[in-house]
């Protein structure tokens, strides 16, 4: 009787799990296998891929544009990480202090995260253009303008500002969840020991938010390797390819130069490098914090 029941239960479980299995098969395993096939073959969307060994890997290794785009990701992270962490932390600390309308403010900031990339890219390119309102204002007040998107040294910084705007609400809420989970007693004890607010921030708040900070940094790294809409629409990858990202290179290789095998191989490199960076970061900075 019990045996029969077990078989019935496991069959039901299998049936329920099969939807997820089917989903994974169609949307994850099939594309992944196809990606692997493409990296070792030559294919131009039509016909059967022909085996090309490691040619695609050698081609990607020798492609200066791809490596420039990878370098651009690190340049982006250099601007983006401090900017987004500081802004999100500031947002979270502010949110904690607010007594009324907390949800409204949090939702307002989250709106940026769900906005269409195409729409806000157009808005930002208008705002930051050489003859746009921000430069108009700067010119009339300070007597100079900033080439936000037209200076090769400045354009990636400007893209980082746009992406920071997009993610500050999302990351801020992650930080906020970390902030509220720190027991008040720890702060009370610190106060009794006459610990100043700066010391409290660096010795209590930030160390106890290690999990949230690592999570935000991991998310920020994945964002950095996946940026496409903003550079593609606002700067076109320029000036002088200073904002060309791997996604832009892959998109152009696959759909404009009709070299999907090349693009697939690039994606393997991007996956390995981004995974490696995240692994290194966690290895170096992640701590197992337990509040007991």
């Amino acid at each position, binding site marked *: 009787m019990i045996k029969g029941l077990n078989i*019935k239960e496991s*069959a*039901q479980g299998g*049936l329920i799990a099969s939807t997820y299995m089917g989903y994974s098969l169609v949307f994850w395993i099939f594309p992944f296998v196809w990606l692997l096939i493409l990296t070792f073959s030559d294919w*131009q*969307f*039509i016909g059967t891929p022909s085996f090309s060994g490691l040619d695609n890997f050698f081609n990607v290794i020798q492609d200066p544009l791809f490596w420039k785009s990878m370098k651009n990701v690190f340049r982006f992270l250099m601007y983006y990480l401090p900017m987004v962490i500081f802004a999100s932390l500031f947002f979270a600390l502010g949110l904690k202090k607010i007594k009324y309308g907390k949800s409204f403010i949090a939702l307002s900031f989250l709106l940026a995260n769900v906005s269409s990339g195409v729409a806000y890219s*157009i808005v930002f*390119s*208008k*705002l*930051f*253009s*050489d*003859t*746009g309102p921000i*430069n108009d204002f700067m*010119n009339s007040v300070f007597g100079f*303008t900033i*080439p936000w*998107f*037209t*200076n*090769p040294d400045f354009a990636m910084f400007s893209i980082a500002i746009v992406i920071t705007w997009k993610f500050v609400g999302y990351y801020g809420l992650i930080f906020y969840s970390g902030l509220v989970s720190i027991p008040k007693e720890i702060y009370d004890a610190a106060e009794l020991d006459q610990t100043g607010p700066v010391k409290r921030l660096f010795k209590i708040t930030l160390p106890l938010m290690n999990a949230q900070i690592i999570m935000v940094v991991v998310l920020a790294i994945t964002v950095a390797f996946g940026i496409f809409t903003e550079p593609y629409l606002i*700067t*076109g*990858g*320029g*000036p*002088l*390819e200073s904002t060309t990202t791997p996604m832009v290179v892959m*998109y*152009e290789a696959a*759909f*404009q*130069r*009709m070299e999907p095998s090349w693009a697939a191989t690039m994606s393997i490199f991007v996956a390995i490098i981004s995974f490696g960076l995240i692994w290194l970061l966690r290895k170096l900075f992640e701590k197992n914090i337990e509040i007991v």
Partner: protein
Amino acid sequence: MKLSKVKVTIAGLFSLALVAGCGSEKEENASLKMWVAPNAAQEVFWTSVINEWNAIPGNKPVEFTTIPATGSSEEAVMSALASGTEPDITTNIFSGFAAQLHGLNQIVDFSKLEGYSELIDKRQMDNIMTSWDYDGAKPVIPIYVNPVMYWWRTDILKENGFDKIPTSYDEIYALSEKFTIPNKQYAVQVAAGKNWWDRWFDFVTFYYAQSDGMQYVENNQAAYDNEAGLEVLGFIDHMFANKWANYDFGANDPLTTGELIGAVRGPWDISRYEQQHPEILKTIKLGPIPTKDGVSDKKTATFADSKGLVLFKSSDMQDDAWKFINWVYSNPKFDLEWIKATSQPPARGDLTSNPIFSDYYKNNPLAKGFAEYVDVAIPSASTSETVAVQRSMTQMLERIIFTDSEVKSSADKSVQEVNKILGK
């Protein structure tokens, strides 16, 4: 027990779905499938034409849909070819993409079909077709040829003491010197934007004008480091070096805001201005693309934003498809309908001489101005490496604009890069 019933039902539903999904689409009464550009004006045109065709007894019915929404028409077509869901005919094909499709042996060579020569003769398209030649094959029927021209704000020109439209580099320098206030207003736009496709509307356009229509990629070799190319780059360099030009006007149209007096525009802008800026449109006058020496007796060559129609080799109704295409493009009535719906000059050489169009052009002088340049408007080079070529051109311009790079060395570097890509 209940469970097995559920299993049987699900299995049954799957089987039904499979049977339905795998059923042959190539039934006897199947209709021709056609994709058209996702553009309201073109949809209006094709609806009318296809309704007329379908109403004629004995014709194979045609069904059209817009090209599926993706990043670009090219992406949609390639995805369809990869999955075997391509239509019989698709429009909105530019010359570079046609080169790729031809290279992949996916499109029918129209010149081998009966009635092709008669159609080309009837539409006086011999000159136009020279830009659509792919190793002797003609796998595209160009639908429209949009010459780009310089639009001038005559009101601002007059305010600055210019009664005549500037056509030479020196005249533009003089106007720029007088009118420019850096980061506020500029005489002309010499760089159209930051993306690779913007090169069609600056360097390529200026190059065609300066070189009298020479190709920038010919016989799989880049050629724009020649005298004409260097003149154009020198002009752009001079404009930026004197701070008379701007690289970034944001997403606004600077011609409408008074930030610019002259810029490259196409026939598609007429209807946009009619709807959004009718007062400004009244001040607009067309001019040829500026060259070093300005206007001569000959019309100045220019770039053509031109798109065509292709027939896929996978179609099992090629004869019917060709019959339909031939029917549409043999009748100038449809060309007139096309112009009225889209304001874009159809690809035919008799636009200003054929009486059927005379009334329309009499009432639409701006459209007529564009139509007059159809025969000297040259599409993008027929290379499958359009993106790589124009990416390199972008770098060439940006080196000149943002660094101390010399015009000659920048052009040489770009040509070498492109030749390396074309030689692969």
